[in-house]
């Protein structure tokens, strides 16, 4: 199945600017992109991001063993947003390097735990997790009805210039 993820250059800039801010104790920041899906004529789905939901400073847990650990309030608030706005939720964080990023083992483990929770409030929608680098991205998408997530096949950054990865 083809999974295409789209984000405008402006929104991507906002995401990166937000995630690059220093946190009082966490080594990195995380957030959520609100998205809506569209069905493709060919076998697949396009996920269209439209707004960033920040994780508030106080909703991080002080855990030096990881870059950022969300507390229960961070998850609860994101679930509320998903419910209120009928949104597909994609967790986002940033690896500040060039080239294709990958999930760390902790990213894999943690996202597998909390992403399917969004089906408790929005069971019909795909949800996922994405890591951006300076010039690329990698992510996984949990499709309703499928047990395992699928890798996002393609990212499209819509702006001037257009970029596809």
């Amino acid at each position, binding site marked *: 199945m083809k999974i295409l993820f789209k984000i405008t250059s402006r929104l991507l800039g906002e995401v990166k600017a937000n995630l690059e801010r220093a946190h009082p104790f966490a080594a990195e920041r995380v957030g959520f992109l609100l998205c809506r899906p569209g069905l493709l*004529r060919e076998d697949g789905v396009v996920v*269209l991001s439209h707004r960033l939901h920040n994780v508030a400073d106080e909703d991080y847990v002080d855990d030096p063993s990881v870059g950022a650990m969300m507390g229960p309030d961070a998850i609860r608030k994101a679930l509320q947003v998903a419910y209120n706005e009928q949104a597909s939720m994609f967790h986002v964080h940033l690896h500040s390097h060039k080239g294709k990023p990958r999930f760390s083992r902790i990213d894999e483990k943690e996202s597998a735990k909390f992403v399917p929770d969004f089906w408790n409030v929005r069971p019909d929608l795909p949800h996922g997790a994405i890591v951006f680098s300076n010039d690329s991205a990698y992510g996984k998408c949990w*499709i309703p009805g499928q047990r395992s997530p699928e890798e996002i096949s393609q990212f499209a950054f819509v702006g001037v210039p257009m970029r596809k990865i």
Partner: protein
Amino acid sequence: MKSAHHSELRLDRQSFLGEESDLVLRRSRVGIVGLGGGGSHIAQQLGHLGVGEFVLIDPDIVEDTNLNRLVGATQQDVANRASKVSVAERVIGGVNPSAQIWTGTSQWQMCAAALRSCDVIFGCVDSISEREQLETAARRYVIPYLDLGMDVHCVGDGFVVGGQVALSMPEGPCLRCMGIVDDRSLALEAQKYGAAGGRPQVVWPNGVLAALAVGLFVQLITPWAKIQDLPILLEYDGNAQTVLPSNKLAYLKEHLCKHFADLSSVGDPFWKPLEAWKRMAGG
């Protein structure tokens, strides 16, 4: 071996577009809605450029009255009642046999799902209402939309040839902001519905406008000459043979579009995943 060698050389003279421009163009998926006077030029040029994937939509067949401007169409196509999209498919395939081409011969609204995965959509439709609908569909799936319009007007004793090319980017000013679509024009068009008749059309203004639109597309996806200012609205005066940025652009600097105020209306309006997944699974 010979054909592979030819394939490598085919785009050799346009390597100035950027180091990986061949790859970028080959991976591009472009929608062209309307394969008549304007769209046939665009299909031809994108075929030469090496665009890899096409979605071509037009419900019409080739008629005698099209042969004055429809690039690639022949008398035989008229006799065979060939579709306009089949002509474009043949033209593209003639220079780029590896291009993947999807064609639709219904109204574009009936096969709009094919456009959702396009990187850019070219709108070469006649009516103002269709242009507005097509732009709305493009915005819904966060797709840049290039709109072409050409007209011949009778003014006094003579005829004035004019047109414009507009680039409508997601989150940027739209066709309404640029004054291409407005309620008065839509109302006038609705009054004339069904009585349009054969509008005057000629080949070269379509060619000029199509070439401008293709140039903007290349600027959008390759590093050759980055677009510096948005929005883009180019106005063509066919009698004076000039193309100039529209005066309206002065009023559109820092303009926030109120018609598509944000991205909150993106995606399928009616998301029916169970049906969708079943269909995808072939069920």
